[in-house]
C-alpha cells in the first residue's frame, strides 16, 4: 500500500480517536458539578438512545469504532516505521536533529507509552481491577480514590500520560491536517498554532480532574 495512503489511514484513525478524547475530556468535567452529576452522566451514557438501541448499545458502538481506529493507527504506524528503517540502512555517525520538534521525534515511542497507559486506564476506571475501590457505577468514588493524595503515584502516572497525549496530539493534529492537504504557505503557521492550542486545552481539561481531587476542590 502506498505510504501516502497509509498516512491517510493514520490521519483518519487519529481524528476519530481525537474526537473521542475531546468528548471524554468534556464528560470528565462533570465532576465539577458534583459527584451526582458525574455518576448520572455515566449512567446516561448507558441509557443513551434507549429503547432504539439496547442498554450500553451506544457505548459498545463507540468501543468498537475506537478499537478499529486504534488497530488502523498502530498498523499504519508499524508499516511506516519499518519502511523508514529500511529506507536508511546505514545511519549517520553524526547528525543532530535541527528542525523536527520534540513532539515530532517522540511520536512512535510516545504512542507506545500512551497505549500502555490506556491498558492501565481501562483496568483502573473501566473494569475497576486496579482501582482502590473499583465499584461499577460509582464513578466519583472511584476517581476520588484514584487521585487521593495517598494514592499519589497513580496521579503522577496519569499526569505524565496526559502530557504525553498532549505532545502526541500537538504534532498529530498538525500532521493530519497537512496529510489531508489543508496546509499551504498562508495557513501553515496558523494550523501549527491551532494544534498547539488544541493540545494545551485538551491537557488542561484532562488534568483539571486529578488536580481538583488531589487538592480537595471537588
Amino acid at each position, binding site marked *: 500500500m502506498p*505510504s501516502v495512503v*497509509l498516512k491517510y489511514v493514520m490521519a483518519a484513525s487519529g481524528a476519530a480517536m481525537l474526537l473521542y478524547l475531546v468528548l471524554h475530556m468534556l464528560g470528565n468535567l462533570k465532576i465539577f458539578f458534583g459527584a451526582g452529576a458525574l455518576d448520572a452522566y455515566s449512567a446516561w451514557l448507558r441509557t443513551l438512545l434507549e429503547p432504539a438501541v439496547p442498554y450500553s448499545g451506544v457505548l459498545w458502538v463507540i468501543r468498537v469504532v475506537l478499537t478499529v481506529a486504534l488497530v488502523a493507527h498502530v498498523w499504519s504506524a508499524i508499516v*511506516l516505521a519499518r519502511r523508514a528503517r529500511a529506507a536508511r540502512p546505514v545511519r549517520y555517525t*553524526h547528525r543532530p536533529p535541527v*528542525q523536527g520538534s520534540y513532539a515530532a521525534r517522540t511520536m512512535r515511542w510516545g504512542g507506545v507509552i500512551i497505549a500502555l497507559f490506556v491498558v492501565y486506564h481501562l483496568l483502573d476506571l473501566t473494569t475497576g481491577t486496579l482501582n482502590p475501590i473499583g465499584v461499577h457505577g460509582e464513578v466519583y468514588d472511584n476517581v476520588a480514590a484514584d487521585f487521593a493524595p495517598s494514592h499519589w503515584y497513580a496521579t503522577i502516572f496519569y499526569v505524565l500520560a496526559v502530557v504525553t497525549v498532549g505532545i502526541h496530539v500537538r504534532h498529530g493534529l498538525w500532521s493530519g491536517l497537512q496529510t489531508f492537504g*489543508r496546509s499551504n504557505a498562508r495557513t501553515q503557521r496558523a494550523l501549527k498554532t491551532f494544534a498547539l492550542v488544541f493540545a494545551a486545552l485538551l491537557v488542561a481539561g484532562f488534568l483539571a480532574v486529578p488536580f481538583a481531587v488531589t487538592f480537595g476542590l471537588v
Partner: protein
Amino acid sequence: MRLHLKVWRQHDADDRGAMRSYDVDDASPDMSFLELLDVLNEKLTTEGEEPVAFDHDCREGICGACSMVIDGQPHGPEKATTTCQLHLRHFRDGDTITVEPFRAGSFPVVKDLVVDRSAFDRIIAAGGYVSAPTGSAPDAHAVPVPKDQADRAFTAAACIGCGACVAACPNGSASLFLGAKITHLGELPQGQPERDSRVLAMVAEHDAAGFGGCTNTGECADACPKEIPLDVISQLNRDYLAARRSRRRSA
C-alpha cells in the same frame, strides 16, 4: 586556517567503509567547501593516497550534484546553501568537520561521498513531465498563467533534485522532492492533462524505489538549499487523494 576533517571513505559499493581523519593546514576562509576537498585531494595525491571521491558539477549552486552531509547537515550548516557555495569563513580555525555521504537505501554509495541518485531520475521519468508538441513550439504568451500560480510554480521549480531532503529526513522519504515536482507542474495549465496520472505514477515509483513515508517533521524543508516549503507535501497529498477519487469515477 587549519581544519580537521573526518571523512567517510568507502572504496566501492561492497566495501563496508569507515570514517578517516585528515588535517588540512593551508585552507583559506575564502575557499568553498569543495575547494577544501580539492586541496585535501591534492595533498592525498602527492602522498600517494587515493583522493576522496565526491560529486560536483556547476559549482554555482544550481545543478544539485554536490551531495554530502557536513557536520550532520546536508550541504552543511548554512541555510539555503549548497555545498559548493558553502565557504570556509563559516567555520572557525581548528574546527573538526565531519563529512558523510547522503544516507539512504535508495541512494547507494558508489565511492566515498558519491551516491547513486538515479532513483530520482526514475521518479521523474514516471511522471515529472508535460506532454507538449515539439517542433512547433507555441508562442510563450499563448497560455496566460495567473500570477499567484506562476509564483508558486516557480518556488517549487527551484528544486534542483539534489536529494538533501532525503538525506535530512528521519524516514528517508523523498516527499519534499515529490511535492516540489507535483506543485511545480500542477500549478501550471501545461501540467493539467497529466495531473492525476502524474501523481499516482510518481508516488508509486517513489515507494518502489524504497523511500520512506513522510512524518511532517520539517527536517527536509530546513535542509533544502532552495528553500522548497513544506506545504508542497500537503499539495502532493491533496492531489493524490483527488487522483484516486477521479480514477474511481472513471473506472
